[in-house]
């Protein structure tokens, strides 16, 4: 039983730290309507930069912030490819992501794995100074970060710039006609999003005590899956802050499902397929349901026969038909 509890706790810690990445994906996917594939690369980038910085003696907090800024830069690259050079957003993201694979290997000195076993991290610092376990420390740090990030995003998207950014995702023609340079708003959104994703990568690397060239693989799909799960569970919330919160909850649920599935003997490598199926199903089911309902609702009988019978005495239709003839 305590084993299961431990697994649950570990999964929730993971979910919270990955939740920061999900908030980044939320900005591009939900607010800007761009599925930004930079995520897989910028997540790893955040982890690589952070671990390399810590190993070379940089303070873990500063190293984490460096991870955030590295992600920000990666997002800016995608943003410039997309806005200045008008490369479709998905392709721009893929280009950055592919390029980052080499960059990340370079940062880690050619190794595909960069362990943080002997060194201090933000999480080990908390754990040593409070006496809680590593995974509890990760949870505490994660919750604090998530609260700060959600509060900051809530504020930012309520400002004039933030509103212009949301409007860019909603109706680009309109906001351009109202004097906003949508290249700027898109650039800000992509940078902000990938900054958060880099921050998340830095935190996850500190929690798992290593950065790995493949640690971000499938990050975008995990992000979408978490958003979808959050929306299904909390579909009634209207407040923007709660919507962001629901995305983090979605991430926690995702990692819980994943941890239990692995406990039940599922191969870790199958999780990518399961994530992909989950997102595909979440996007496909509403469409399939609508089509099915439209088909099922059709009938050859006159559905409104009673109304027609009642009004036919008013001669409305008869008049119209006469006019035609």
């Amino acid at each position, binding site marked *: 039983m305590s084993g299961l509890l431990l697994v649950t706790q570990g999964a929730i810690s993971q979910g919270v730290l990955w939740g920061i990445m999900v908030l980044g994906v939320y900005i591009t996917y939900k607010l800007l309507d761009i599925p930004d594939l930079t995520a897989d690369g910028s997540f790893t980038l955040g982890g690589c930069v952070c671990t390399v910085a810590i190993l070379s003696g940089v303070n873990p907090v500063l190293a984490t912030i460096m991870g955030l800024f590295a992600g920000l830069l990666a997002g800016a690259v995608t943003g410039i490819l997309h806005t200045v050079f008008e490369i479709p957003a998905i392709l721009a993201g893929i280009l950055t992501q592919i390029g980052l694979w080499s960059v990340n290997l370079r940062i880690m000195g050619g190794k595909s794995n960069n362990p943080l076993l002997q060194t201090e991290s933000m999480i080990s610092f908390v754990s040593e100074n409070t006496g809680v376990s590593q995974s509890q420390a990760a949870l505490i740090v994660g919750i604090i970060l998530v609260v700060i990030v959600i509060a900051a995003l809530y504020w*930012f998207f*309520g*400002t*004039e*710039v*933030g*509103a*212009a950014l*949301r*409007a860019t995702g*909603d*109706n680009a*023609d*309109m*906001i*351009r*006609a*109202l*004097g*906003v*340079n*949508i290249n700027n708003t898109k650039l800000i959104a992509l940078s902000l999003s990938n900054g958060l994703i880099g921050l998340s990568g830095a935190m996850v690397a500190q929690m798992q005590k290593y950065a790995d060239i493949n640690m971000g693989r499938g990050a975008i799909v995990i992000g979408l899956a978490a958003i979808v799960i959050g929306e299904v569970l909390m579909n009634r919330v209207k407040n923007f802050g709660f919507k962001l919160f629901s995305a983090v909850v979605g991430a926690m649920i995702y990692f819980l499902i994943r941890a239990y599935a692995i406990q039940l003997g599922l191969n870790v490598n199958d999780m990518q397929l399961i994530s992909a199926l989950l997102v595909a199903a979440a996007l496909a089911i509403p469409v399939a349901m609508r089509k099915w309902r439209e088909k099922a609702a059709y009938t050859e009988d006159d559905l409104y026969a009673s109304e027609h019978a009642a009004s036919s005495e008013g001669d409305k239709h008869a008049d119209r038909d006469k006019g035609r003839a």
Partner: protein
Amino acid sequence: MIEIKNVSKTFNKGTVNEKRALDNLNLTINDGDFITVIGGNGAGKSTMLNAIAGVFPVDCGKIEIDGVNVTRDPEFKRAKYIGRVFQDPMKGTAAGMQIEENLSLAYRRGKRRGLGWQIKAEEREIYKKELSRLGLGLEERLTDRVGLLSGGQRQAVTLLMATLKRPQLLLLDEHTAALDPATAATVLRLTREIVEGEKLTALMVTHNMKDAIAIGNRLIMMDRGSIIYNVSGDEKERLTVEDLLHKFEEASGTEFSNDRMILSR
């Protein structure tokens, strides 16, 4: 005053689809002019409005607004001077955002946007007052999403947004064409109230010749990218639809063959 000099624009240059959409266009718009624009399909009416708004760069010529040469300014920079209402009611408002958010975006047209709160408390009173002018009861629905409104309501809100911060020029691109007749009449009445009431300078493209004659102080007719007829004042007052059809045939040398315009006379 808006001055358009020798403006031309060719789309798809060097391909089989090459089309000179604007051909040496010249037009002077005085402050307070309310000009209706008519012409057949493909005459260049919308292209002219888009060229003024900066949707695409023109090939040559000059566009000046109040003495400022804006010819090479991108669309978002010219927005400082220009309010616009599009034909498609969905195009002028952000459906997922609240009515007051849409208005606050419009209230800042052409201004630098910073990190201040998007709506200041005192603005709400302005929005309520302005919305009540529409007579649609929207002043009680400030926080409703615009997506909940009908096409006509959205177009009325767009009109309000385009004029919330007084524009040097208002561009109306067949903004009632996609609405049902009753709603179109309402939006047109609001347009006149706002443009005439505030003495705005406006260009209005329409397919309805009666409206074109009845509304505004000037009328221009376009054909093949140029202005072929330009009347104002008393001469415009005396115009009839027959005159316009005759003018068109005389100036362009072709029979007027636009179903939509003939049907709507």
